[in-house]
């Protein structure tokens, strides 16, 4: 009996350890795997050429990722500008001004919004945002656009970022000690002054992290953006012109990547680029959050 128990203990221990090590090895494996597939293109071109060149002619062997990086950055910034203030104010209302009941209603709402698949947001974008941009927004500026544009991509992304950022902001505001708020109020501050000087100041690192992680999330979002952004190779300042973000490039061209030399490794390079950028942003801002959580 005793021996069986000991052997089970050892075996299960090995299993548990293996599971954990495998899990922790995933990021390393992804990095190595993508680098291995992207190696031909990294070896054949200089890194600055790949990142900053605007020449994208896979048939001629020219791979400049600048238009894609530009589009990605454009929709991400747009999404951030649209969603960040909304999330900040909503989180303030839910944790400071509103009734506790509202927060209880809100948490499932956030969960459901976060759970809705990207492709459904894409369908919504195609049905609502794209026609709205084409019919109502574009005429105001006197330009012509099909609606499939950087702006549509930014709006859909903004909506997708809301549950993610809002959830983190609520958690940040909830960790601020009640005593601190009471001290401020007892000195005669109005509710808003208390929020301004105590909540926002004290939660500043957390707010920054929530925003940063929201940006990282937006940067890597694929299907929903792909469906509304138009996917045209172009560097344009106007939000009404179509764009072609990095994830869309990867998703759109998987079919033909085997037929053109170096094309598959170019796409793997794009994936590697996304992976590195997002991992770095994540590690940086998660560090902030973990620091504040421990206190």
């Amino acid at each position: 009996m005793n021996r069986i128990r000991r052997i089970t203990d050892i075996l299960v221990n090995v299993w548990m350890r293996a599971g954990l090590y495998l899990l922790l090895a995933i990021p390393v494996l992804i990095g190595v795997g993508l680098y291995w597939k992207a190696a031909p293109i990294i070896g054949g071109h200089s890194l600055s050429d790949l990142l900053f060149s605007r020449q994208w002619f896979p048939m001629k062997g020219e791979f400049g990722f600048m238009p894609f990086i530009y589009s990605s950055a454009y929709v991400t910034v747009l999404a951030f500008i649209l969603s960040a203030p909304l999330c900040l104010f909503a989180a303030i209302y839910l944790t400071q001004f509103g009734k506790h009941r509202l927060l209880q209603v809100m948490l499932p709402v956030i969960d459901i919004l976060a759970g809705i698949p990207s492709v459904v947001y894409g369908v919504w974008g195609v049905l609502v945002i794209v026609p709205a941009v084409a019919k109502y927004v574009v005429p105001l500026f006197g330009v012509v656009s099909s609606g499939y544009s950087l702006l549509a991509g930014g709006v859909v992304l903004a909506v997708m970022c809301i549950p993610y950022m809002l959830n983190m902001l609520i958690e940040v505001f909830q960790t601020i000690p009640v005593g601190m708020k009471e001290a401020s109020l007892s000195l005669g501050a109005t509710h808003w002054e208390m929020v301004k000087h105590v909540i926002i100041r004290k939660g500043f690192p957390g707010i920054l992290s929530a925003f940063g992680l929201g940006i990282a999330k937006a940067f890597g979002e694929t299907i929903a953006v792909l469906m509304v952004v138009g996917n045209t190779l172009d560097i344009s300042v106007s939000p009404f012109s179509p764009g072609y973000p990095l994830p869309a490039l990867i998703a759109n061209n998987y079919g033909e990547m085997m037929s053109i030399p170096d094309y598959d490794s170019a796409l793997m390079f794009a994936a590697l680029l996304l992976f590195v950028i997002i991992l770095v942003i994540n590690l940086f801002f998660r560090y902030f959050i973990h620091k504040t959580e421990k206190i």
Partner: protein
Amino acid sequence: MRTWKVWEQRLVKGISFLAAYSVIFILLFLLFVVFSKGLKALSWGTVFSLPKGGYYFGGEGGILNAIVGSFYLSVGATVLAVIIGVPAALFINVQLIRLKRTQNTIRYLLDALWGIPSIVYGAFGFALMLLLGLHASLLAGIITVALLITPILVRAFDEVLKTIPVELQEASFSLGSTKTETALRVIFKQGLAGFITALLLAFGRGIGDAASVLFTAGYTDNIPVTLDEPVATLPLSIFFQLSSPIEEVRERAYAAAVVLTFFILLISVSARFLSKRYAKNIIK
């Protein structure tokens, strides 16, 4: 001075009130659009039949291949994620209970892993597939989705496990049980509600994700019988059909979107219900 303060506060309260309620409005609006558009196209034929000849030109048939395919894929991936993830989560909370620093580092890494977009997993899954000599198939899809959802499962389960008091483990050890017995019979049982939430969260993510299966699962009009056959998934069926120029085909994409959204809502509601139900067994 006094009045400005009051006005400023009123203004901010008004703005933040609108911001908070607009989030609820967005959800309702989204659901309304998806359901109102899709329910018209939804019928028993769409849900319970396979694509027939000329389906992608507006012919007869349905999306059963994608529904069943998504289900197979997600169940497979969730099982794999449980096999890897549950022992890992228990290990963090039993064996490493005294090593707070290590625990925090692991959680930090897992959180960072959570943020990696699914398209990167998809590309990696594709590279892995080539390395292992697989082609786009149910198995390759399962492996890729499992990689994507395991960190989610572990972190969600771990959030609950870490609230379990150390004393409970100490009591179990003092009665002479091994670490394994403590982990499986005491800690796992205590965290059962959290496990169910984590399981459904991971399952939901698996069923809804498109970018990771784009390269790895392929697409087919049939229901796969073996692991090395390609498999259709709901998100991809929505995605492909929506890009069609034919109205009937796009209608089916809306119908498929309703089916997918319905599953996600169902999973979300049952996660809430079940976690409440199983929370009753917890020793406080």
